[in-house]
């Protein structure tokens, strides 16, 4: 058996371990074991690569791995859970960067000797890697608030973006006929870098779950292209897995927003534009009824009598970091004899599964977390629905108003609960810029202000009332 055979067998074992690992990630009980499998696979793949006959010097490799591990460990251990969307965006950027650099290095080393397939792959790899890199950086900037979160649009953006894609693909085709032209590859790189920015700028903050998934898919495709360029199967498999997961999650997210995938793919400006139109069409809110503004004390009085409660978290909970206060509230209500569950909308927050992670961080057992489909029919039989910083995912207009931009989007039927208590910073409309009639319904109590502070006060109120009740009973 030659060294090459050993390397190939190690790659095969690594690929099997990756797939096994992802399969175990499908269940909460086995998920951590899945991560172990994947880690072992990665170790085997790296060990195999270090045997590669083209590697002649190791000192720079060691330095880079030490530096990368140090940064990776620091990020892995110290990034707070509320910053997960930002971390994911950054890691897509690193992935795209690595792939683009490998492509340039590969072309620089073997340029004129590469076959047509490898050249196509190198071109696509550099293009997709560059696009993922800047696109993810812009996404990161939007999540961090460095770049304006609202959609940034300009005239003919979709036409210009499509032209950019065509230009890059034309460049790749030309690269195959003229392999020994490094400037051509740099031009492809430049187009990719620009397109990454122009494709993500028009996307609004709440569309982030979809765009993060898409960037994940691009990063995966770029990795697969690297595999074709280097003739490396483990890269191709991992690229396919990563690209596939990004695509699946992206499809799920866009379905949960009732948007076609192509609508999101081509700049995803749809919601932003219609939202602006809707806001312009209804200045000052038109003929909306008066909202019932309630105090924490009012809310506590209603909750004291409640036997069944459903909590609906949204991005606002993440912003004010109210997940621990929410957990305390649930515990206080449960101590009071109420059944408490959580309803999680697929696109609540800024990435797939965002709310689940935050609530898990606050020690909420995952058995209390319910998906949209599993819980939506129960709102009609629920005493109180508590909405914490969610807006569009609970807007009844999606069910009832044909003219609404979000009509048809599956929403949580909070308005069917006997009482809805909504914690909201202000009356500012959500990402789609649409009025939410839930907030003006007579059965809705609005508690304005910072969600964390309001809920902490509510917890004190509920506990105090319960204690007073016990004293009355004792007396």
């Amino acid at each position, binding site marked *: 058996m030659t060294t090459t055979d050993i390397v190939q067998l190690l790659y095969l074992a690594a690929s099997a371990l990756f797939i096994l690992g992802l399969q175990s990630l499908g269940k909460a009980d086995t998920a951590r074991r899945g991560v172990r499998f994947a880690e072992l696979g990665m170790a085997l793949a790296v060990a195999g690569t270090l045997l590669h006959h083209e590697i002649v010097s190791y000192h720079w490799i060691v330095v880079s791995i030490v530096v990368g591990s140090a940064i990776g460990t620091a990020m892995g251990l110290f990034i707070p859970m509320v910053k997960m969307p930002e971390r994911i965006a950054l890691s897509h950027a690193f992935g795209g960067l690595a792939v683009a*650099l490998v492509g340039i290095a590969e072309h620089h080393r073997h340029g004129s000797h590469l076959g047509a397939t490898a050249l196509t792959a190198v071109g696509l790899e550099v293009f997709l890697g560059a696009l993922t890199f800047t696109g993810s950086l812009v996404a990161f900037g939007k999540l961090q608030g460095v770049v304006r979160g609202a959609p940034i649009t300009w005239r003919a953006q979709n036409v210009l973006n499509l032209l950019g894609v065509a230009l890059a693909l034309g460049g790749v085709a030309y690269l195959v006929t003229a392999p020994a032209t490094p400037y051509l590859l740099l031009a492809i790189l430049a187009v990719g870098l620009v397109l990454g920015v122009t494709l993500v700028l028009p996307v609004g903050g709440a569309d982030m779950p979809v765009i993060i998934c898409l960037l994940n898919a691009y990063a995966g495709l770029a990795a697969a292209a690297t595999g074709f360029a280097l003739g490396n199967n483990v890269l191709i498999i991992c690229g396919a897995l990563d690209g596939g997961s990004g695509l699946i999650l992206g499809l799920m997210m866009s379905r949960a927003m009732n948007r076609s995938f192509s609508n999101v793919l081509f700049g995803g400006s749809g919601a932003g534009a219609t939202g602006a139109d809707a806001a312009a069409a209804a200045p000052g809110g038109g003929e909306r009824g008066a909202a019932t503004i309630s105090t924490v004390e009012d809310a506590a009085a209603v909750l004291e009598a409640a036997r069944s409660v459903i909590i609906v978290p949204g991005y606002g909970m993440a912003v004010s970091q109210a997940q621990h206060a929410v957990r305390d509230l649930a515990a206080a209500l449960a101590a009071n004899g109420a059944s408490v569950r959580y309803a999680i909308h697929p696109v609540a927050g800024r990435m797939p599964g965002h709310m689940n992670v935050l609530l898990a961080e606050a020690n909420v057992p995952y058995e209390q977390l319910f998906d949209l489909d599993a819980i939506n029919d129960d709102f009609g039989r629920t005493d109180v629905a508590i909405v914490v910083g969610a807006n569009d995912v609970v807007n009844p207009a999606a069910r009832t108003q044909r003219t609404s931009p979000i009509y048809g989007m599956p929403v949580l039927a909070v308005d069917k609960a006997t009482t809805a208590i909504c914690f909201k910073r202000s009356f500012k409309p959500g990402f789609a810029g649409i009025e939410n009639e839930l907030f003006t319904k007579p059965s809705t109590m609005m508690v304005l202000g910072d969600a964390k502070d309001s809920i902490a006060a509510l917890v004190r109120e509920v506990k105090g009332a319960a204690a007073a009740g016990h004293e009355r009973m004792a007396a």
Partner: protein
Amino acid sequence: MSQTSIMGLYVFVLGAFVGWQVLSKVPHLLHTPLMSATNAIAGISLVGSLVAAGSDHDTLTTVLGCLAVTAATINVVGGFLITDRMLRMFKRRGPSRGTR
């Protein structure tokens, strides 16, 4: 088209099918850990960057390769660590005191 690239296409298409089957079964609950884990796995581009960094071809290749190795290692190490940190928090039963 060469034999190797045809084989590559086989691997890609079959890998995509397996991935689709496996990944579409992951519940919403675990989507963030899933994304973070596939991210770490995509750090496999490390395999390509290692060859560039260690080939001793010329300075440009080494610099590009080393930058790529650093970026990919950040993803692999950071990705696996944070995935595990997240999954440790997912508990079936109520709050167990003393673990925080």
